[in-house]
Structure formats: C-alpha cells, structure tokens
C-alpha cells in the first residue's frame, strides 16, 4: 500500500485542483483557489507524514530518482521539471494579469425600513402581498397567470425563459441578472423584499450594492403596484420556490 502513497497523493492533489478550478460555476477567484490549494497541500502532507511507513513510501519514488535507481531519461525529466514548475508558478504569481479590479458587492443588502413607492412612503416591515389575501386558489392561479404574461413582456430578456437569470440580454450585464431558481435568491427572501427590489430597481440599492452597475429598471415607473405583485406571484410559482415569511422564520407554518 505504501508503494502507492506518492501517486495517490499527487492524484488527489490534481483532482482537488481540477474540481475547484473547473467544477465550480461561476469560477472562484484565483486568490481563493490559492488558499484552498494551500490547505489541501498541507492536509495531504500532514496525512502522509503522520505515519512513518507511509511517509517513507511517499518519499521512495523521489529517492529512487535522486539516487539514480531509475533510467537517466526519467531522472533528467524529473530533475528538470521541478525548477521549471517552480519558476512557472512564480511567474504566474507575479506577472500582472490586468483582469478587472476586485469590486466587492453586497448581493442582498439590508432593506430600508421605509421606501418611496409612487410618491407614497411604504413600510417595508409590515408590507404583505395583497393578492395572497383570501386564500382563494383559483383566483391566485389566475393572478399568477397574469403575472406570467407581465413577466414575459418585461422581465424575461434578462431573467430568462426558465427564470434562471440567463435571458438573451443577461450576459451583457454585470452583475448578471438574478437566477430565481437558485435557492440563494428569492426563496430566501420575503415578498416585501422582492417588492422593494422590483419597485426601486438598481438605483434604489444602497451604495454597498453598486447601484450604478445594476441594470434592474425602476419598475414603479413602468408597472402598476398590482402588476408588480402579480409578477412576484409568478416568479415564485414559475421557479418552484416559496417566499420566506415571518411565520416560517419563527418556526410556525403558514402554507
């Protein structure tokens, strides 16, 4: 078993690297990847060094190379490759890449307690979707369906046919439009929050959330209050998610 320690460690390291580099979308920043890989390297080394037999097995192939117990070709290849890899690594580390500067952005900023909707102050904390009142399923389905039409006439260019944030304009925008199918978006937000985001759009964001970059229109200038609530009904239904509510947050159930 000890015989395989070196190739196994190397394989594990490469697999971890490939997984982190190519397996995650969107790609993680290079600096974060570097930290993960350092941790993984240390972890593998600690595991290998913890047992003396294992450690010797790990060193054995290297020793074989340096003691000349392999063919000259392999020896030259390994001895040549190590400085080259190191030099290449250093170059990549210090060469300027001129990718876009790092701009931190708050994805779900704290909502204001109050905001202005069509000239009226709205209390975000007590705001509820009026269309859900009454609990009439048939009426709700009809309203949701009307929301669908509004969605496909106003939103789907960016947020996509399947509500996955990948509409035909989506790639032109930075940040890219929200993916409603992602559990990290509307399903962890209350409808009142979504209403605030839709109504006030990009310019309504606080500074930490880069309001100047968001292509989200100020929908209160384009849609009526009821239309916005209908769209909100649809994006939850269409993406198969449910809004977060205070009742759920405090352990009760509402639906």
């Amino acid at each position, binding site marked *: 078993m000890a015989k395989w320690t070196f190739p196994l460690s190397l394989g594990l390291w490469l697999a971890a690297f490939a997984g982190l580099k190519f397996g995650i979308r969107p790609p993680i920043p290079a600096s974060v990847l570097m930290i993960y890989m350092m941790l993984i390297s240390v972890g593998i080394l600690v595991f290998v060094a913890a047992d003396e037999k294992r450690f010797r097995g790990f060193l054995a192939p290297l020793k074989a190379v340096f003691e000349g117990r392999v063919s000259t070709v392999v020896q030259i290849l390994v001895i040549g490759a190590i400085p080259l890899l190191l030099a290449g690594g250093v170059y990549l580390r*210090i060469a300027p890449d001129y990718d876009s500067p790092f701009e931190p952005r708050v994805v779900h900023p704290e909502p204001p307690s109050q905001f202005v909707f069509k000239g009226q102050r709205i209390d975000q904390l007590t705001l509820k979707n009026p269309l859900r009142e009454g609990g009439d399923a048939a009426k709700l389905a009809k309203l949701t369906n009307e929301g669908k039409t509004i969605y496909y006439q106003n939103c789907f260019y960016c947020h996509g046919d399947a509500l996955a944030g990948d*509409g035909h304009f989506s790639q032109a925008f930075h940040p890219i439009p929200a993916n409603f199918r992602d559990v990290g978006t509307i399903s962890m937000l209350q409808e009142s929050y979504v209403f605030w985001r839709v109504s006030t759009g990009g310019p309504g964001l606080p500074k930490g959330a880069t309001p100047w970059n968001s292509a989200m229109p100020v929908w209160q200038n384009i849609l009526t209050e009821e239309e916005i609530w209908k769209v909100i009904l649809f994006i939850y239904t269409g993406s198969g998610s449910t809004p977060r509510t205070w009742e759920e947050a405090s352990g009760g159930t509402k639906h």
Partner: protein
Amino acid sequence: MNPTNPFTHILLTLSLAVFCSGAAVAKVSTEPVKPTPVAANPEAGKRLYENNCAQCHGADGKGDGPAADFVYPRPRDFSLALFKVRTTLSGQLPTDHDLFKAISKGLPGTSMPAWEKFLSEEERWQLVHHVKTLDTMGLFKEEPPKEQVVISNPPKVTDELVKHGAKVFQDKKCWQCHGQSGRGDGPSAEGMKDDWGQPIRPVNFTKSWTFRGGSNLEDIYRTFTTGFDGTPMPSFAETIKEDDRWALAAYVKSLAREIKTGQVVKAKHVAGDLPKDPYDKAWEQAGQLDVLLAGQIVLEPRWFKPAHDTVGVRALYNEREAAIMMVWDDGTQSKGDNGKPADQVALQWPQEKAAGNEKPYFVLGDRQNPVDYWRWNAAQGLARQIFQGYDKAAPHGADGVVAEGGYKDGQYRVIFRRPLSAKSDKELSFAPGAYVPVAFHLWDGNQGEEGMKMAISTWHYLLLEPPTPVTVYLWPLGIGFLALGGELALLRRLRLRRKSPS
C-alpha cells in the same frame, strides 16, 4: 399483414407513390429517418408546452405569445409546419430528431434557449410530439418525413479546401446577400422578408455565435443543402455539387471568428504617433475585445430588439494620448439621408475622478455623477456632451477629443482619441496601470435606432497596459536556478552516501 384487406393495399400504394415521387426529384443522397425513441404522452406534452413555450410561441403555436412582439427574430409559428433547421429537403417537414435538436440546443443568436438545461430528455421529446400537433395543416400526419439528407464523411479542412470554397462563394454568388466580406452586406441584403412578411437579415458569417443551426462544419453544410424554409435562404442541394458544398462550408467556417468577451479593454503601448488609419497593423497588435450589448430596456422608451449584439473595442496609447477604436459590422450603412437615422456609436466616461469604485449610473449618469459622452454620428461626426441622467444634457467643447471613422466591407471602424491628461485636476485623466470606467452605446439607423432606442453595455474598464517590469522575469529565473542548484547538491550528496558504504 392481410393482403386482401383493401385498406392495407391502398396504404401501401400510397406510401409507394409518395416514396417514388420523392425519389424521382432528389439527386441528393438520403437515408431513412431515425426512429423516435419516446412515444407521445399528449397530456404531458400539452402541459410542458403551456408552461415553457406558450409565452413566445402562443397557446395555439401561431408564434403570437405575449413575448412575441418583443424579440427578434420572431418566435416560430408552428401552424404552418415550416421549419428552418432541417435535415430534410426544401419544402419537406423536419424529422423528429431535427425538432428535438432545436429544442435541446436552442437557436443561437435568437431568444430560443437551450432547453436541455432545464428539461429532461423525456420532456423534450414530449414537446416534439406536441409541437407536431400544432400544425393546422395536418401535414405531420399526412406526410411524415421518411428520408433525410446524408451528412457524413466531412472532408479534412485544408487551406486548399478553404481556397476552393472561396471560389465557390464567388462563382455561386453567395456574396449577393451575404456580402464579399461575409458580413451580410451584399447588394440584395436590404429589405428581405420571411414567409410571414417580417423583415429578416442575412446572417453575418463572421459571427459564429449567431449561426441559427449551429456553427460546426456539418451544420453549415446542412444549411446549404436543405435551405432555411420560411426564409429567403434557399437550398443548393441540386445546384452546387456535394464536394463544393463542403468546400463552401469550410470557407464560411474560416470566416467565422469566435467571440472574445471580457470586462477590461487593454490598451497597448506604441512608440511614436498613434495610427490614424483604422487598418494600420498596430491595431492588429492591440487585440479586440467583444463587448456584449443589450437593448436599452431600462428607461422609456424601452428598446427590445437591438440590431447589434456586440461591439468590438481596441485601444492603443503613447506618452501623450490614447486612442480607442470601435469596430462593428453593419450590413446596411445609413448616413441619415434615406429617411432613416444615421448610424452612431458613443463612449461614456465618468466626468470626474471617483472615490473608490463609485460610478455614475450606467445609462447616461445621474444628477450627482455626470458622464462625459462622446458620440460619433455617420453624418455629423463627433459631438461631446455632459449627461447628468438621460434627461439632462449639456454640450461640451471637443477639447482635444477627436473622432474619425469610416465604413468599408460591411464594417464600421471609428477611432476616438484624447490626451492622457485632463484639463483640470478634478476631471478624469488616463494613466498607465489605472482602470478607467467606460461604457458603450451603438445605433443602427437602418433599423430605426436613434435616441434611447439603442444597444447598451454596462460599465467596462479601459486599462493602459504598463510595460512589464524586468523583475517579473528575473524572479522566476532566480528561483528556478536556485531549485536546480539545490537538486544537484542533493543528488551529489545521495550519490556520495551510496558510494561510501560500499
């Protein structure tokens, strides 16, 4: 099978007749259509269609869903059973596999997404079955496709093949619509309509990402062979030989470039004067960034069908000034004298130096954060303005900003130049190594674009790339040699140790 059954007999005769009439005409080699792997479940198909397709294609498949008016090209009308991307000959119905492919992979350059991301294979087959029921003529029942064009053994793409393809492109007059440069700027390109009377433009062969039927060699060959039913693109199955069609596909593929997107326009340093000729070699060295554009859908009047999907940006600088070249393809030049607006391009910069990463609003700034706006118009040239929001503009002197450009071979190239330093300390200046925010706007006058009806980008950056310091090369060299030295020392020690006990 019971031979005395008159029904079977008639069916047999009928199918024979259909087969013979098909065979008599087609000189192209065909093969039997592959079987459909999934049986129809009408209820599931209908439900999936209503949930995923009706918004564009309409509840009855007439291509008239609520979103239909807001996308170019318009969604397919299924009621006539006419389909663009097929492996069957002109005028014939597509195979189930053709439909399955279109649903799965989507149609590049349109709003039809690749549904394989969201729907299972089974679900996509159900949609194929349902789409066929929307054919009001009942043709899918009456004459289901039996034979499809054989697309196999593509030749190896060589320089000779491409060269031969270029000759075929000339001889067979493909340039009449698609233009000599392949940018869709041929003499017949203007005013084309599809079967539904909607305007349609010939494809730009240089933009591989907009080829509706896909951009690999077999896809391009298939389009030449079967044509795009419902559009002016004809079939050349009988009028261009198979070998020549492959060569043509290879040539078209050679014109198609890949898109190169990113957030930073990197300006390369040049010694001496910046080139004024847009075709100067120095511009090749600059490299092109394709900036993705979207319709201006943020402010009224919103514009859902932008004519341009990208704009190319290249940049160069020297000690005194920076030059940015905007490159974009336009099949129909408009100088504003044909009753339509002139073509335009604009660059937008923050007017003032910003604290941190704060920027003006990405469309024409806001009251607190003005933008410096350079607009080049094909008829009037440069106009420099300061915008504080789309509804508040003030003229500004050119103050050293120059814009020159022209149109050639279906492509605009417009060069903007400005001095690196600003007139005052407060204003934005350019310095090597500093990221300068910039956004782009583009108009196609021939498509009626003017004012807020335009294609827009979000903020990008212009970076004057500083020359690489020598230390960037010295460090790796030093470390490499150090490691090699260490290795050699280790080698020596181990050798000595092995020798000494023996």
